[in-house]
């Protein structure tokens, strides 16, 4: 991944993603070969992560060139690096996050004194929960104090801790919302979609290392093409989606999801190449408000030129960056 624009197509493209329903475009793109088809001679290499920060670290260190990731880690790296690290080239998933709680908690007023989990400190859901609790008038802290204790915990641990009664609830992405509901008998207290205008908020975007983008614009365009194909396929084949996704998850982690879980999860996520750029300033504000992000500019975070080229070629409407980058 040498940053010289003249070096032609690279031998390999390293892509990072989670083996997770919210990363379904990645799973489908790999499983059905959309990426490889679009990339041609450049070989696709994949790495599976289970947390945003680790993905960002790999991206910053050049171990991967592009990644599917939540908006908050993307914002975080962009601001922390002074805009030098990476840009968002496409959207992938929206929706699919919720606050699920145990029996006995039926309204936000039941929450004081409880312990709620999030996937990881500073990730998209963590910030969402903190911002929502602040809206409800509750204090929280990154060190575990406050009216409501927020305990960033590995998703796998969250399920077992919840089952053991050691957690009262969690703000999670799919399929964990569904797993907690179906396997842990939790119920949904807040669906994040209800908090956003038009029920639309970004869950997963496609982020590309800036140096890589500068060196291999054609390769990045091919990657975006693969993403568009995967999203289209998902929207065209809702019936087969679960099977394909589960096949990839099984291949990556050795353990698939139950059909109930995957079906319920897919009901709650939408797949779209629109990264919902308008939501990003709100996310930045949320992060700053809960003291989890350096307040900074995200001007230039988006580079949707390739996406819009592809979309206009197929006659679709271009997508706006809302003034946050190249269109």
């Amino acid at each position, binding site marked *: 991944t040498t940053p010289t624009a003249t070096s032609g197509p690279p031998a390999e493209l390293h892509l990072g993603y989670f083996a997770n329903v919210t990363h379904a475009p990645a799973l489908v793109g790999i499983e059905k070969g959309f990426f490889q088809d679009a990339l041609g001679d450049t070989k696709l290499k994949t790495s599976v992560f289970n*947390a945003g*920060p680790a993905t*960002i*670290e790999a991206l*910053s260190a050049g171990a991967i060139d592009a990644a599917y990731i939540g908006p908050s*880690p993307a914002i*975080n*790296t962009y601001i*922390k*690096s*002074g805009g*030098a*690290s990476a840009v968002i080239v496409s959207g992938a998933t929206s929706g699919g996050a919720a606050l699920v709680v145990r029996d006995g908690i039926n309204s936000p007023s039941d929450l004081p004194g409880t*312990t709620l*989990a999030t996937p*990881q*400190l*500073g*990730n998209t859901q963590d910030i969402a929960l903190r911002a929502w609790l602040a809206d409800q008038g509750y204090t929280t802290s*990154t*060190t*575990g104090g406050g009216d409501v204790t927020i*305990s*960033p*915990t*590995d998703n796998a*641990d*969250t399920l*077992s*801790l919840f089952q*053991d009664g*050691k*957690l009262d609830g969690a703000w999670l992405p799919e399929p964990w919302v569904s797993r907690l509901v179906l396997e842990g008998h939790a119920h949904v207290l807040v669906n994040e979609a209800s908090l956003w205008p038009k029920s639309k908020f970004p869950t997963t975007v496609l982020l590309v290392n800036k140096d890589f983008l500068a060196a291999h614009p054609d390769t990045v365009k091919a990657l975006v093409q693969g993403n568009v194909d995967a999203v289209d396929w998902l929207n065209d084949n809702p019936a087969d989606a679960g099977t394909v996704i589960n096949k990839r998850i099984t291949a990556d982690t050795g353990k698939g999801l139950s059909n109930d879980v995957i079906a319920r999860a897919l009901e709650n996520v939408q797949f779209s190449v629109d990264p919902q750029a308008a939501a990003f300033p709100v996310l930045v504000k949320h992060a700053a408000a809960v*003291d*989890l*992000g350096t307040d900074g500019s995200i001007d230039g975070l988006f580079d949707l030129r390739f996406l819009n080229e592809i979309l206009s070629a197929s006659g679709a409407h271009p997508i706006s960056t809302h003034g946050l980058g190249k269109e």
Partner: protein
Amino acid sequence: MPPETTLAPPEAEVRPPNDLRTLESGLDALQTAPVAEKRAWRRFVAGVLPPVLFLIVLIVAWQVYVVVAHPRPDRFPGPLDVINALDDAWSTGRVQLAVATSLGRGALGFLIAVAIGTPLGLLLAEVRLVRRALGPLISGLQVLPSVAWVPAAIIWFGLSDATVYFVVIMGAVPSIANGLVSGIDQVPPQLRRVGIVLGASRLQLATLVVLPAAMPGYVGGLKQGWAFSWRSLMAAEIIATGGTMGFGLGSMLQQNRELADLAGVLTTILLILAIGILIELVAFAPVERKLLRGRGLLITRNSK
């Protein structure tokens, strides 16, 4: 004097003649040249100044590089960024909380490890069968990185403080026990024999002779045990985050990592280092120095 001390002569009789006295005191004077102690401030200048100056030079060079070359701030923060990060974390109380939590956990875990390791070491040192059967296993455990216990502990105890204590204890007990064993092994057999000759009972022998003689080895073992406690604690705190875990320095490190905040990471590393050094200087070094000096075992390297 009790009646059976008739053999001890009336003092005036045994006192050596003046002739022998002066000869002896002359020889004693010749053979015990007082060693001149270096003055405190000179030791300070010789010992503390050079590394501090070196550090300052290093930090200045680092800051100059950052100002001149403008590396990416998330990959290469400057010393000022680190200081700012520390200041931030201090003003929000995160530093104080993390240090207090970690120190509390470390101290409690270490004390439990001492309470377990000391009788275990005594058993190992004094009961031959226990030594033969258990000794190699304990030495083996000392080889096992205590970080390896973290995953098992999480499964057993969940994300709770019990996990932390378990890992700390598994890390520290073997070295405390082995320290005591080697301390007791190193008691010169001659000292035991003197004790026996002086008529000490088994218990008196243990309390008046063996234990005091084994102290330096034991304190060495404790020091190493603390180092392992601290290491294990950091490992456990970094890996086992979330759940009902409190917020320690390891958690702070992991949090800063997750926020991709390298300045914060470096700040936390410096804190961990500082506390490790401080505990050694404040808690162990004086005890060890006193013990060794009292036995004339402290070698003051003044040349070279």
